[in-house]
């Protein structure tokens, strides 16, 4: 090897963390919205929250926690040079992401089938507090769903780079950063689940 390679892995990870902080503030805004309206419409929130299916929310919690475990182990596997295990685990993670979105699809379809969607006539007839709950629910879980898709896409791209040998035991920061993003998706769901699905069941 001639030429000196310019690399700063710690800087790369710190940069990723800084980006994640902006994501936390983005979702933080939605949680503030939730908190303010929960304070204003405590009873309506309980009624509306009771409409959400705990099994969908709980099932997706298990899916995301397990996918996070896979990503965490995948990083260790790559660092130890076990590329095969790493790729398999990332494959499981992508499968979990798909499972999450399919669940979400069934859940949203059922709600939309019952006339519960932003701007619907049924929502218009509900008490204002319940309509607000469902609107914030759609915005928050929708934005979270977009993050699931982006996270899965980044992980697939990382898998391609690992296959090509560009991300490997000596240079794994790309996988670490993609993993950090995926864990953030998990973190946000950790708060969404109890606040939206478990509100006084």
């Amino acid at each position: 090897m001639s030429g000196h390679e310019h690399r700063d892995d710690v800087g790369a990870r710190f940069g990723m963390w800084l980006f994640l902080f902006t994501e936390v503030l983005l979702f933080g805004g939605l949680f503030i919205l939730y908190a303010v309206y929960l304070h204003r419409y405590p009873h309506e929130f309980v009624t509306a929250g009771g409409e959400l299916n705990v099994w969908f929310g709980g099932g997706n919690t298990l899916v995301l926690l397990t996918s996070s475990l896979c990503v965490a182990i995948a990083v260790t596997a790559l660092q130890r040079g076990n590329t095969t295990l790493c790729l398999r685990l990332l494959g499981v993670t992508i499968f979990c992401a798909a499972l999450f979105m399919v669940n979400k699809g069934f859940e949203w379809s059922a709600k939309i089938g019952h006339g519960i969607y932003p701007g619907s006539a049924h929502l218009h007839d509900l008490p204002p507090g319940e309509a607000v709950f469902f609107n914030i629910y759609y915005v928050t879980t929708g934005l979270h769903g977009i993050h699931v898709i982006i996270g899965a896409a980044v992980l697939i791209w990382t898998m391609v780079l690992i296959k090509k040998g560009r991300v490997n035991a000596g240079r794994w920061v790309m996988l670490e950063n993609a993993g950090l993003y995926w864990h953030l998706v998990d973190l946000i769901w950790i708060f969404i689940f109890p606040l939206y699905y478990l509100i006084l069941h």
Partner: protein
Amino acid sequence: MTEHAHIVPYRTFFIVWGLLLLLTATTVAVAQFNLGPFNVWVALLIATVKSGLVIAFFMHMKYESRLFLLALFAALAILAVFIGLTFFDVLYR
């Protein structure tokens, strides 16, 4: 420059995963009881503990330099200020 990586053993991750599942079961169980306004506080407390586990182990915060943790707390402090100022308005209108 290749840094010396702190390689976390698989076992640590499985233990953390087990704790996360346990805490999820706890939050579902607690939600079955009517504790009035405390339900949401208990839910937030458990979610915070779960987040701490994910950040410390899955996201390797425990093994990063202190600067990372400092930055995390700065970001959370900013979020706390937003929440605080919002409620200062909402509660005393």
